[in-house]
């Protein structure tokens, strides 16, 4: 029985396709007979499907060009808002550092301020744990220990236009990871978990990581960004040695989707 590598275009097999021997013709007849017995999609499956499609329509439906333009504007607003949060956080941090400031552990905003002070890239870093609950903070403060690390999701909102610019994505994610490449990381959170956590964008990004087939153990993190104006996820993964690979995939990826771009980026010296 030859069930192994069937990628080759074997001339003999192709010839046998057109004139199959009797046993194989019989198999064909059996397959056809089996197909003839097919029934319609069961009512419960059809109902689930209808509900999912209705939810997808409410969730935004088709990403028309107009909507994508609106999404782009929204992302710009989001980036501006993130910058405001960083600056506002800086003020809070400054207040905390003063003799009159509140003590104790800082909020997410104050953590962002810390990152701003340390020259970290703007943006919100979100780490999804196995339960899909995110924690916000900065890459500089969030050291990504094995106890808390899930899939690192960074929302830079950057619009990457070419392969060279993907080095920036790698930098954003590596800065967010705050951990050496050799650090132990937990497996990818499931998209369903992220969805349950209430963030469909993160769920989509995690789904796209799975679509790309990038090994969970090699993923350093994901940057929610844009590729030439289209919402995209940049998956940063270890590529061996001192190199990481940045793989861009459309955020509305479909199963079997090809990457939009890929670039191997040397890890910047610490």
């Amino acid at each position, binding site marked *: 029985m030859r069930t192994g590598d*069937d990628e080759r275009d074997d001339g003999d097999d192709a010839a046998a396709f057109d004139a199959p021997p009797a046993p194989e013709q019989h198999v*064909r007849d059996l397959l056809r007979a089996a197909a003839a017995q097919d029934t319609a999609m069961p009512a419960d499956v059809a109902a689930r499907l209808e509900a999912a499609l209705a939810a997808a329509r409410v969730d935004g439906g*088709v990403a028309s060009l107009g909507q994508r333009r609106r999404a782009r504007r929204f992302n710009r607003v989001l980036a501006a808002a993130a910058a405001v949060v960083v600056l506002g956080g800086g003020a809070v941090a400054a207040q905390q550092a003063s003799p009159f400031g509140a003590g104790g552990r800082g909020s997410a905003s104050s953590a962002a301020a810390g990152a701003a002070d340390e020259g970290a890239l703007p943006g919100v870093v979100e780490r999804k744990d196995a339960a899909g609950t995110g924690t916000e903070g900065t890459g500089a403060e969030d050291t990504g220990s094995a106890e808390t690390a899930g899939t690192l999701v960074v929302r830079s909102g950057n619009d990457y236009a070419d392969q060279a610019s993907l080095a920036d994505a790698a930098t954003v994610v590596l800065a967010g990871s705050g951990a050496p490449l050799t650090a132990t990381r937990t497996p990818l959170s499931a998209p369903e978990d992220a969805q349950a956590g209430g963030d469909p964008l993160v769920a989509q990004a995690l789904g796209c990581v799975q679509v790309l087939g990038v090994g969970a153990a090699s993923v350093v993190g994901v940057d929610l960004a844009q590729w030439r104006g289209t919402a995209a996820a940049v998956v940063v993964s270890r590529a061996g040695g001192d190199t990481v690979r940045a793989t861009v995939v459309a955020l509305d990826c479909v199963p079997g989707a090809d990457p939009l771009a890929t670039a191997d980026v040397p890890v910047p010296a610490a």
Partner: protein
Amino acid sequence: MTPSAPGDDGRDPRTDAELVAAHVAGDPDAFGEVVRRHRDRLWAVALRTTGDREEAADAVQDALVSALRAADRFRGDSAVTTWLHRIVVNACLDRARRRAVRPTRPLEEEVGPGGDDSVRTGAALAVVPDQTPSVQTRLDVTGALARLPEAQRAALVLVDMYDVPVAEAAEILGVAVGTVKSRCSRGRSALAEILGAAGNR
């Protein structure tokens, strides 16, 4: 597979391509009509390709939600049905690959009394040639189908079960026509061997 299925019995008369265009333009009902036209065939293909009811349901759902969202990227180079089948089959194969990493029991199987799991409902039952295929034989062949590599299975499901033209199957699977023929030929040969061995047992 026909590129469109406008109905003359009160159904929406628009072609599939017109419905997809209407969906992209904002018609809230258009995509649902496309789905209603083709969901039974998509379901059947998914069920045969995955060999598992829940996997098939999830694959069809994921695929059609993706298609709904990405409809603006459908350029009309192929028929809408070909496009939908491609997305569904890819979703099935994607799930099969993931399942291969995290194996689960793909079919409702019955393990033999001695723990011999080759004695499965379906694949291990006899084929009776020279007769009209009985219900039992049909169960046999679909059970045996589930034992093939997914690429061969997908090719056989499309071409031999559902009469999808080879060129269209090649487009759906994203491979050359010769590769589809090769996969079908090898798949048939493997099935004949599985079923023959079971019949001789």
